[in-house]
């Protein structure tokens, strides 16, 4: 049953108790997005170190379990990582969801890979793909949006 793969324990947990919610203090970059068809919203805040490393990351937003879980997982996994690495993870994530490829970055722990892969259930639900991907696109766009 595909529904169970969509709403895995990990997702439900992240959906109900999203990590890194709020505005992280001293953020240097941010971006927001929303899905006009369903009303989902997300705002990503980043504190970048010399444009090299994600020192801190957080998000605000409302939406379905999938979109909240995806935001929570993203922030959890990318916090403290090098920029180039976060970009690679984001691309791999988007490719996983759209093209059903696997995540195999060796700088992620097995746990982290399991977590991020839990979102691959949306593949079977085309109308829900955007719920999972929106925050990742928003993160990538935040990288380019310096906050003055």
């Amino acid at each position, binding site marked *: *049953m*595909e*529904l*169970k793969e*969509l*709403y895995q324990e990990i997702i*439900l947990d992240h959906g*109900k108790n999203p990590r890194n919610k709020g505005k992280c203090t001293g953020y240097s970059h941010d971006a927001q997005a929303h899905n006009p*068809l*369903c*009303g*989902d*919203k997300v705002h990503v805040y980043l504190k970048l170190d010399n444009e090299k490393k994600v020192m801190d990351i957080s998000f605000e937003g*409302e*939406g*379905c*379990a*999938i979109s909240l879980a995806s935001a929570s997982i993203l922030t959890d996994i990318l916090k403290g990582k090098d920029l180039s690495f976060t970009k690679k993870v984001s691309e791999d994530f988007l490719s996983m969801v759209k093209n059903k490829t696997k995540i195999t970055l060796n700088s992620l722990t097995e746990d982290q890979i399991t977590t991020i892969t839990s979102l691959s259930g949306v593949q079977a*639900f085309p*109308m*829900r793909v955007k*719920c999972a991907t929106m925050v990742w696109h928003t993160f990538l766009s935040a990288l380019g949006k310096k906050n003055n």
Partner: protein
Amino acid sequence: MDIKNLKSEFPIFKQKINGKPLVYLDSANSSQKPKAVIDRLSNFYETEFSNVGRSVHTLAVKATNRFEATRDLLKKYFNAQHREEIIFTKGATESINLVASSFGEKYIKEGDEILITELEHHSNYVPWHFLRKNKGAVIKFAPVNKDGEVEIDEIKNLISNKTKIIAITHISNVTGAVMPIKKIVDMAKEKNIPVLVDGTQGAPHMHIDMQDLGCDFYVVSCHKMYGPNGLGVLYAKKKWLDDLPPYQGGGGMIDDVKKDNITFADAPTKFEAGTMQTAEVVAFSEAINFIEKLGIKNIAAHENEILEYAFEKLKKNNSINIIGSPKNRGSVLCFTIKGIHPHDIATILDDDGVAIRAGHHCCQILHDKLGIAATARASIGVYNTKEDIDILCKAIDNCKKVFQI
């Protein structure tokens, strides 16, 4: 035909969804089509198709006659006073855009007021927004009350001597509130203000008598009324037909075309530019026949019974919050479940074959007012049964299971 058991008239219900029978509760979005309508469509294309009104050969004559006969049928069905008051459009959205554009071109100036409500679908707001943006008009919103209705006094209070038109929904596609159109029209008439009624959710579910309602404009989407896609009706009272300028320009709607000037045909042709949806119009006559065979009053009674049944069952469920409690509710039931986002509800219900819609249903203003981004909506069509509602309720229980609450 037995009104309690119409699924066999609608081929879509032969489908299994995820191995389960389809429980279609998304009719406010678009209704399914009876076999008679689908067959008429293909039959027309197979044996009678031609363009309308332009050629004199046998096929064109037949097509033109059938096309115009549908206009006559609609005149009668909606009790319009004149056949030319029935204008064919692409849908309710185009109908409202047509009025906003043509009426606005002639009558709306900077500072003039357009009065709508917080209940309106985007298609009864955005076209007026264009007049705000391009002409400096002002849009006033009559507020919705805690029951999800707009009180007539609230509309009255917002009328000023700058109010040029009132545009208002017949039935809210979110709270289900049935608006007292006749009273609103009477009140507006006293002040000489024309009224446009967005009947998109009204016409499929209730008896509509244009002369009785007395409104100036009434818009309908045929695809929500068991008819084909891509077709709408604009009812416009005779007095406006000569008065308003045409909307789109093209073949058929002209009278005389010279290099320095163009004059236009009389209504309805004036408002029907270009090749029309001949086959769809003809097939829509079968949707009207279908409705008339059952009787629109019987349809309303049947749908209300199902709606009432659903309302009572959902009300008993503590984790469910039903949106709005209007005195008169028509055909839609929006709700939320504590701890589960409407999008997730829709996905989980779908797994049980239950088709509902989640989102703001093109009513962002209303959702902002309610303070929620999205709701789940079950909407009723003539084919729904109490069993459908039982399956809906079970599927809702399943949502809680999946979410472990």
